[in-house]
């Protein structure tokens, strides 16, 4: 079962990486880099079940939570900059 989640995260990472490279617009790039992040987070959370113990390891969850916070704040700055750029253009 855990292999399925690894596979899913691999697909997310590869597809979003492809779109990150080919996308020309800033918004598309922002979305693709966010999806890439989700793929990485999914992978990290899935590794929590990778132990012989009955319960999943809580540490990856805590780390992913931190990662999500960082990704959200980076996205906020990116959106602010894109909006500023559009206002300048008009």
């Amino acid at each position, binding site marked *: 079962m855990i292999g399925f989640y690894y596979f899913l995260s691999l697909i997310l990472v590869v597809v979003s990486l492809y779109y990150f490279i080919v996308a020309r617009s800033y918004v598309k790039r922002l979305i693709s880099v966010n999806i890439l992040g989700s793929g990485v987070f999914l992978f990290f959370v899935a590794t929590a079940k990778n132990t012989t113990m009955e319960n999943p390891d809580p540490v*990856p969850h805590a780390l992913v939570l931190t990662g999500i916070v960082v990704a959200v704040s980076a996205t906020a*700055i*990116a959106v602010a900059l894109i909006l500023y750029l559009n206002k300048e253009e008009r």
Partner: protein
Amino acid sequence: MPIDLGYLVALPLLASLLSLIPSLRVYTAFIFSLLSFLLSLYSFIYTLMGDIPLYQWIGGWVAPLGIGFRLDGLSGFFLLMTGIIGFFVALYSFSFFKVEYQRQGKVFWFFFFFLWAGLNAFFLSEDLFNLYVVLEVLSLSALVLVALPGHRKAIKASLNYLFLSILASMFYLLGVAMLYANYGVLSMSLLSEKLAGTHAFTYALFPIIVALAIKSALLPFHFWLPPAHSSTVAPASALLSSLVVKPPAYLMLRLWLEVLPKDKSLEYLSIVLSLMGALAILVGSYYAIRQKTIKMLLAYSTVAQMGYLFLMAPLYYHGESFREALLQAFALQVFSHALAKASMFLSSGNAIYVARRDDLSYMPGFAHSHPLTFFALFFSGATLIGLPLSAGFVAKFLFLGLSIRLGFIFQGSIMLFGSLLASLYVYPIWRESFSSHPTKFYDNPIPQLMELSAFFLGFLSFSSGIVTFLLLQGIVRG
């Protein structure tokens, strides 16, 4: 007396918050930059005499669960570097934002101190996940500094930098996840024990190395750097080009020398990194020579100078018997380039202040009208080239000796050729400064503080070559 390492991070963070209060801004900036500088100077002196490595566990939680700070010779040296540059850039910025970009001056200090806190935390952290968070702190504050002037070019450069740095962070996190899944620890000292004799880490290492290469602008990923570092205001450029690109390279050295075991795949990796570094030196210098504006020239020169740190990757793999000399050479290369590049960007700010243009051809007669700024450019340029006595010379000399002793003639000769190329792109700045037709607006005086801080940084980058015996002693301790 041991110090509380937390203050090295807490003090600049407090300063960044206080600088948001308009009436306190100038006092905060002055007092806290001085205090942070003195604190990093003290921690450097502590690494010379005290009991190191000094560990500090935040909240009293010890390693696998807790996050630790660790002060040793190398990190103490880099703290000193951050302190010196931070202090002089702060002095410069007092005058700079008084005469130019007043609006930007209101927010500059917040991100300046935030960046300083991030840098100190990076050099002290010894936990891979904590390093990820700090890396993000660095990039987020750096990209706001890139966007500071607010014109389209700067915003675009900042956005491109932001996307690449998020991408790099995600790669880094992927590598960290793989390491954690296999070994169950993130602290570097614990990891080094667990890695011995295993091979699984090589897969995790690949995304981490790619991430560090993007963040420190190694060749195929260098394209974000020149626009980002050249389009912003002078003090911000100085910080970005001298300090922000260094931490990833520092982490790579740390991993290589202290964490990773000897493995055949690492040898191939080191050769690939070395070739990329060699290309970075050649291509970066080539583009630097072709530039017509001083800031683009300096930005491409950063690409070239960062190349040296990666060019020497095979030495990190093979040179465990020369560990001390390696650490010294690496640290001194980083230190000399950081000080010299900061001084050059500050001087370029002075030149732009009088000429209102950043074309190289607009600098004629600079040596006659503004000798202090010219001497800053002279000393820092000499360090970039690696002229004898300068710190850059000592670093290159150490690297050269090591590469000959370990039999890496290719690396040594590329480094010498890189010095030659560096003199080709530094020379036009000097030549234009000496031409004998000072134009009329060059009579404008530059605020004294701006000239003096640029000069002292350049002078320190040169003269620290003379006192290297003192500096080098500390690096290898602990």
